């Protein structure tokens, strides 16, 4: 159990856009850091340590980019680390910051990062290179084909249709209409998704997230600072993270210990976070989830592994509107990763958007009476999974 209580007391996000040509990478990170500090009512001098959230830097094209960013985010003279777990990076960075405060090592931590995924013309070229050059890289693996493979398996297991995934896209883009930072948004139809160009079966173009540029930051504080500075914080009541084998081929078939298509790692990560946060019935106790969902098929297995419904049931709850804004469970009121994916901070954006709902600062997306919210992040070859439970009250 943590030695000290930890809360989110400040959140900063820039708009997520295809390109941001009027700012450099480090200026984007600075915008988010400044916004989070302003939100928390703190100055850089009030921050004890900094965690930098950044995934592969080959998208934006500077090796060791954390080194370039140090001055822009006021890290000079402070403890500093970069955290990188691929798509799960932002969630892992948040957990590192949480541990700094929970342990009593630091009173305040700024978690910040930025990404510019469109600065290279084909991000999937980089994402093919995350596989080893001996056994897997030659076979056109990238994050699209990787999750398409898992999705084919999921559809075969549970009978899910392409149209059911298309409804997830429709809901996400509609939710994003009220999020000024969202990259993709709009009123689209299932037919629009179904008629978009085929990429890798079952994915069409609209089933896939955009390549976004933007930045995010979160300020964490211990109980003493939180009481002084924030009247409505988002307490971090539970965290869980688990890592799986790099080999997806180990997670299919009868000898698997964590089924690939079920995102089964989240059963373990969720179980740990729920135990800390006192969550025994997620569907009743949690009102908002911000899921890491770069593809339309990634919501259902997460919701099932996190205990919101039985395996294979999420598709039907989605169809009947149970995951719409203000329904039984509001899934990705921000529009989620399907609408904005600045990879190096996407997991942090999930935490930030969940925290904003608790803090009553979600703007036009604000839902009433949010007591508990959950965020997830997933990275590597569907390999790093983490989740965070935030609450209006400390448990």
């Amino acid at each position, binding site marked *: 159990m943590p030695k000290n209580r930890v809360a989110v007391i400040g959140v900063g996000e820039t708009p997520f856009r295809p390109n941001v040509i009027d700012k450099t990478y480090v200026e984007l990170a600075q915008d988010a850091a400044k916004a989070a500090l302003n939100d928390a009512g703190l100055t850089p001098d009030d921050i004890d340590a900094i965690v930098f959230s950044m995934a592969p830097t*080959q998208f934006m094209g500077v090796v060791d980019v954390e080194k370039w960013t140090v001055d822009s985010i006021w890290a000079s003279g402070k403890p500093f680390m970069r955290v990188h777990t691929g798509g799960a990076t932002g969630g892992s960075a948040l957990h590192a910051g949480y541990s700094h405060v929970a342990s009593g090592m630091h009173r305040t931590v700024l978690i910040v990062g930025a990404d510019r995924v469109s600065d290279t013309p084909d991000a999937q070229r980089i994402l093919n290179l995350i596989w080893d050059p*001996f056994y897997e890289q030659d076979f056109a693996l990238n994050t699209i084909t990787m999750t398409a493979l898992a999705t084919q398996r999921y559809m075969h297991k549970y009978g899910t249709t392409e149209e059911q995934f298309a409804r997830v896209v429709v809901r996400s883009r509609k939710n994003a209409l009220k999020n000024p930072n969202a990259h993709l948004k709009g009123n689209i139809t299932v037919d629009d998704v179904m008629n978009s160009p085929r990429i890798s079966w079952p994915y069409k173009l609209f089933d896939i997230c955009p390549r976004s540029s933007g930045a995010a930051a979160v300020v964490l504080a211990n109980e003493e600072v939180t009481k002084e500075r924030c009247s409505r914080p988002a307490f971090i009541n539970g965290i869980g993270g688990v890592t799986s084998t790099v080999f*997806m081929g180990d997670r299919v078939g009868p000898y698997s210990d964590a089924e690939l298509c079920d995102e089964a790692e989240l059963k373990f990560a969720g179980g740990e976070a729920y135990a800390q946060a006192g969550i025994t019935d997620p569907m009743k106790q949690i009102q908002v989830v911000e899921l890491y969902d770069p593809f339309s098929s990634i919501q259902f297995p997460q919701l099932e592994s996190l205990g919101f419904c039985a395996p294979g049931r999420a598709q039907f709850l989605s169809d009947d509107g149970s995951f719409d804004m203000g329904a039984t469970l509001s899934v990705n009121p921000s529009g989620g990763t399907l609408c904005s994916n600045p990879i190096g901070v996407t997991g942090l954006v999930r935490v930030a958007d969940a925290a904003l709902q608790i803090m009553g600062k979600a703007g036009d997306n604000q839902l009433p009476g949010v007591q508990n919210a959950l965020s997830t992040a997933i990275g590597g070859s569907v390999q790093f999974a983490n989740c965070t439970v935030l609450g209006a009250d400390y448990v």
Partner: protein
Amino acid sequence: MAKQESMNEANVITGEWSVRYNYSIGKVAGKFFEGLKHKKILATHCSKCGLSFLPPRAYCERSFEPCDQWIEAGLEGVIEAATIVSAQFETLPKPPYAIAFVRLDGVSTALINFVRGMDLSNVEEAMQRLNPGTRARVEFVDNPRGRITDFHYVLAKA
């Protein structure tokens, strides 16, 4: 690392990386690739937990014991996951093509490769022939040279 820079009209500096590497194969992968030259697929086996691994491992990640045997994988197996790619990605093959994780007979885990020899003109129809559980077999190239690309899969019943 070679880096080329120039300014264009949009006030954006362009750059390009070209980086060369030498990847050491090591003993375990070395034995596997040597097997491929003889049209054999060799897996490592852990006698403590009974699992056999492809790609081969030096250590069993379930029992935390060294894999203590080599076995010859069957040259047929079962599809566990598959997709057909319709889009062109930079540096990747010209579409369409099919890829699949296939669990070869006698092995506990699945290995990815291309599935060749299929008519992919109708993606929906072709996907119906790649369902999990479908039998596939290994087909070697004529002159294997000790690379993972020395073989691919084809459907067992064409």
